[in-house]
């Protein structure tokens, strides 16, 4: 049974009354492979979040993530530095375990020369998983770099840093309860399907709200999250209620986004009206460039 969005009219964006979205230049890359019905989840919540954290702080210009264990531990709330202390006395076990797991399974490569130097690493192309032998295998000659990934048909997700702020990756029980693995994975997947020039937001084939106010989610999306439609519904409803996804009524011509109904007149060609979910946090460069030139003016932003 599809879920009805309660009070859809209050969530539906009608027109610009001040900025409706937060547009930021910083974004990071996560490989799509990790969210899939044929790929295992990370062994625990710590490893998943620490991996996201490393991806977010990876510097593509020098291929390094220079975040020490101390910095990771403090940023993600695993440890607090006592006032006056020079450094952490011990690294939390979870952080050590997570980094060791990521290294052993070839998600990252340590780049500090020895144990006296602060931890730093390179993010690697996500290993292939071989179900028969339950093992991760490092792909040859592929790098965590967009051209390399594209050339070898490894998909990647571009997500705004601010949408995955360190605050939501923290260890605290209340944060973990709100920001479950499923929500983090769902948000990443939604960004994987956000193509503003083609859809004005998340691809309506993946998730949309029909004219009767019912949420329609593709089975494909649910299976990739390894969850039921009902569970996926709950996550999307939560994003909408928190304002992280904003429903916008849009014109589509030949299945391609034309503009928001509240911002432009109907197109001259035959068109359809669809409700698109537009993420609250958007990446600036996705709104720039030739393809967006015309459409940007027809968008509530």
């Amino acid at each position, binding site marked *: 049974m599809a879920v009805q969005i309660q009070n859809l009219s209050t969530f539906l964006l009608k027109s610009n009354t001040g900025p409706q979205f937060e547009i930021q230049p910083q974004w990071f890359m996560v490989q799509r492979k990790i969210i899939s019905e044929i790929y295992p989840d990370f062994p625990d919540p710590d490893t998943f979040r620490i991996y996201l954290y490393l991806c977010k702080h990876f510097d593509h210009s020098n291929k390094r993530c220079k975040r020490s264990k101390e910095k990771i531990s403090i940023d993600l709330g695993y440890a607090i530095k006592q006032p006056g202390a020079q450094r952490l006395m011990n690294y939390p076990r979870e952080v050590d375990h997570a980094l060791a797991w990521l290294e052993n399974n070839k998600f990252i490569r340590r780049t500090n020369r020895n144990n006296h130097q602060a931890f730093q690493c390179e993010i690697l192309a996500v290993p292939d998983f071989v179900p028969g032998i339950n093992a991760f295998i490092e792909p040859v000659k592929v790098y965590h770099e967009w051209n390399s990934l594209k050339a070898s048909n490894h998909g990647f997700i571009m997500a705004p840093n601010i949408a995955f702020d360190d605050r939501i990756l923290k260890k605290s029980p209340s944060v973990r309860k709100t920001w479950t693995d499923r929500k983090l994975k769902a948000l990443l997947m939604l960004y994987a399907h956000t193509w503003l020039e083609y859809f004005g937001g998340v691809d309506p084939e993946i998730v949309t709200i029909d004219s009767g106010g019912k949420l329609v989610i593709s089975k494909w999306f649910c*299976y990739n999250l390894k969850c039921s439609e009902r569970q996926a519904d709950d996550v999307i409803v939560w994003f909408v209620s928190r304002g992280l996804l904003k429903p916008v009524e849009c014109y589509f011509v030949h299945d391609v986004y034309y503009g928001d109904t509240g911002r432009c007149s109907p197109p001259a060609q035959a068109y359809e009206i669809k409700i698109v979910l537009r993420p609250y946090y958007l990446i600036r460069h996705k709104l720039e460039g030739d393809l967006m030139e015309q459409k940007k003016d027809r968008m509530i932003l």
Partner: protein
Amino acid sequence: MITSTHAISIKLGKQNIQIQHDRVSQITIFDEPLEEPYEHMTRKAINGVPLLQNIPMMDFQAKIGMLFRGPITLQGIQLPLKGIFEVEIVLESSRGPDELPLLSVMKSVVDGLNREIVADDHSIYACSIDYKYLKTKPSLTKPSDVLSVALFERNGKRRTLVHAADDVNIYVVPKKDPLFLDYNNDALWSFDVHDQRDIIFDALRADGMRFAGGGPIKLNMNFEGSVMYKDLDNMARVYFKLLEKLGLQSRDVHRIDLAKVQAGKGCTRITLN
């Protein structure tokens, strides 16, 4: 049923082409096989028009690539492979072939192997797909599709298994057309191959060829001629469309066998069982 062979001759461009058919289940076209032209162009843009490939399809293809890349890399074999190959696909699903048109599923799987696993899909000389209806109550959190893909290398008359990904619980996404950004201009291309296919269709239809509905049907297509650099599935797509125009319903097709043979004389043989 006793069937008799009918022969017709048609003019295709400057050439006269001979076609034999039996009005019910067999067509032989004595000409170089036609192929859909656009798959060899760059994926990013056709005629400079920006396009977006279907993301779930691309993702499905990436997963197919992964299922082969890991195990083959593990054997210490360098990818992509060069040689002559055959692919066998078995699809079991509680979804019907109307939702999973077999030729489009085959195309999607082969695209997943192309470049990453086999250097070029030209090098796939035979490909088959078999569909079985799966009568199980689908799980709420797992796809009901079960896919098996086997890749063989052909050495003369023998073939050896390179790798088989068996019984994978994966959500199958058939080949889909990309979205084009400039909807005013890009739907306008017309290709010679489609005109030629329509000429063949008109001649066959006029001579009494039509398929009765109903299935399940086993479809065989053999392509002979200068086919070394032609993709099996791109050739198959041309003739599948021809068969559809002659009354074949894609949902009735439960098995497809495609093969190509390099030969001096061009010929396309189509059989439905």
